[in-house]
């Protein structure tokens, strides 16, 4: 055995990085990654880029498609609805998500149960969850029946196919993306800090306000940005439960493709993509967010 080891380690010690066999070894990682990189370029990246190029080369090289957006009433209304929905949904997720994240981190015996309740909807497809809200919010749905029974309304009200339905369903779908990063940040807070605060006479509210909340901000920022970026691109939920006139950017893009209006669809896609990437670029600059972001993407 030792006769085998000796020459091998000697060879390693003698060879310099510049020699041929080591160069080949350097190429191994690239060779391993190459099949997937080529695959992703051919079947995903180049198709998307080719489609986006239609926004600047249809019929010849031009920026006119972007210029017309400035006076495009339909685009501006749609863009506003998209941003407005995303902001509302993100705020809703933050308000509902923070207490649940705290509950998850604080709970001892109940923690696995809470985790399952958070993860079960998380693991269910967007289509099924949107369908669930169609069942609940319909004219004869459970929510209307309950409100009627409680005497809060006289006759069924219209909830399905309104912006409110979109917001409720999207909050439901995106809530776990807010809860998990916040819970991650809360878990990393040193418990002795909280004990120290209360030992020094701080009330629970003061401890929360001055110790827990500031220390969980990286999770809050990561969850907020993640939720917002995902909300921007929502298509299925607003199309299923939203109002017929409350069109989001994704729905407008799909509509334009159906009418084979590729230049316009590509221009809108570029705007949507640029908005999402700009938010992510800002997110990566914030201290602590990059890290929390990466762990929550898994």
């Amino acid at each position, binding site marked *: 055995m030792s006769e085998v080891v000796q020459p091998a380690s000697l060879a390693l010690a003698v060879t310099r990085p510049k020699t041929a066999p080591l160069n080949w070894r350097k190429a191994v990682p690239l060779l391993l990654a190459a*099949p997937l990189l080529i695959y992703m370029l051919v079947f995903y990246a180049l198709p*998307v880029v080719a*489609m986006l190029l239609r926004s600047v080369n249809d019929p010849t090289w031009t920026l006119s498609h972007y210029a017309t957006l400035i006076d495009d009433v339909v685009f501006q209304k749609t863009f506003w609805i998209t941003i407005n929905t995303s902001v509302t949904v993100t705020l809703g997720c933050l308000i509902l998500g923070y207490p649940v994240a705290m509950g998850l981190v604080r709970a001892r015996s109940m923690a696995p149960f*809470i985790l399952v309740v958070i993860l079960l*909807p998380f693991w269910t497809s967007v289509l099924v969850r949107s369908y669930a809200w169609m069942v609940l919010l319909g004219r004869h749905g459970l929510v209307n029946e309950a409100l009627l029974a409680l005497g809060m309304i006289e006759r069924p009200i219209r909830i399905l196919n309104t912006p409110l339905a979109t917001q409720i369903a999207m909050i*439901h779908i995106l809530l776990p993306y807010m809860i998990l990063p916040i819970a991650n940040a809360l878990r990393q807070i040193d418990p002795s800090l909280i004990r120290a605060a209360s030992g020094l006479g701080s009330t629970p509210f003061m401890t929360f306000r001055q110790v827990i909340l500031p220390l969980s901000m990286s999770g809050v920022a990561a969850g907020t940005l993640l939720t917002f970026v995902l909300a921007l691109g929502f298509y299925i939920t607003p199309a299923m439960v939203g109002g017929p006139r409350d069109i989001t950017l994704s729905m407008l893009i799909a509509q334009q493709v159906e009418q084979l209006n590729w230049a316009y669809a590509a221009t809108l896609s570029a705007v949507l993509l640029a908005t999402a990437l700009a938010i992510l670029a800002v997110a990566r600059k914030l201290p602590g967010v990059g890290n929390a972001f990466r762990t929550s*993407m898994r």
Partner: protein
Amino acid sequence: MKLAQILPASVVGLILFFLAFPIVVVAVVSFSSATYLTFPPPAFGLRWYEAYFSNPDWLKPTWVSIWVACAVVVLATFLGTLAALGIARLPRGLRVVAAGLILSPLIVPGIVVAIGIYYAYSRYGLVGTPIAMVLAHTCLAVPFVVTSVTASLSGIDPRLEQAALSLGATPGATFFQVTLPLIQPGVLVGALFAFITSFDELIVALFISGTGAVTLPRRMWDDLRFQIDPTIAAVSTLTIILTAALMGAAHLLRRRAERNRMATSSAAP
């Protein structure tokens, strides 16, 4: 318990109810005996499951979805695992570019990916074929495989591979006998995620499944345009059970791998 404890607990309880209730309603409605959607159901029965299992219009898309998802698992797990092994050893600049390309489907809005793929695939006559679905879904599934395998690779003690190599094992033997067993949980979790990603995917399917490769989510979507009869509740319940079982398995696998890793790293000096 004091009010200060009951109040936060009940707020959390209400929000958890909001999270779980819609799923529960779908499951309960699917066992309804009524011919229309109503809650609570007047009586329970399996008629909507019978309606699903006896209707080829539902079963055919189910099989298409299963076959596409299985093909995606093979392709995405193979390409993704190889790439994860390579990327971890790439020089930093190249690694950032490669990871950016591979992980970008997580960030790029679904509609942009879908119409880009539709735009290019339709040029090559791929729209409406199961092959197109597999090719496209693999791109969406790969990020999950790569992140999962990368995570388990980063937990490996590099001395184990060095020891195998210095004891005379060939790089191939080192990979198959040392590295692969260590990253196996990560590969498996990635494969499960790949299956669910494809099985649940709708936006790309809306554009490229055409009439020749209608998947289950696409069939549900088409049906919902005209009616919301409880058959969809039955289909939904079945998919919830399937995905929850697979995701639960992935979750437990990952937890166990993390625990093992912590045990080995704390045992090391």
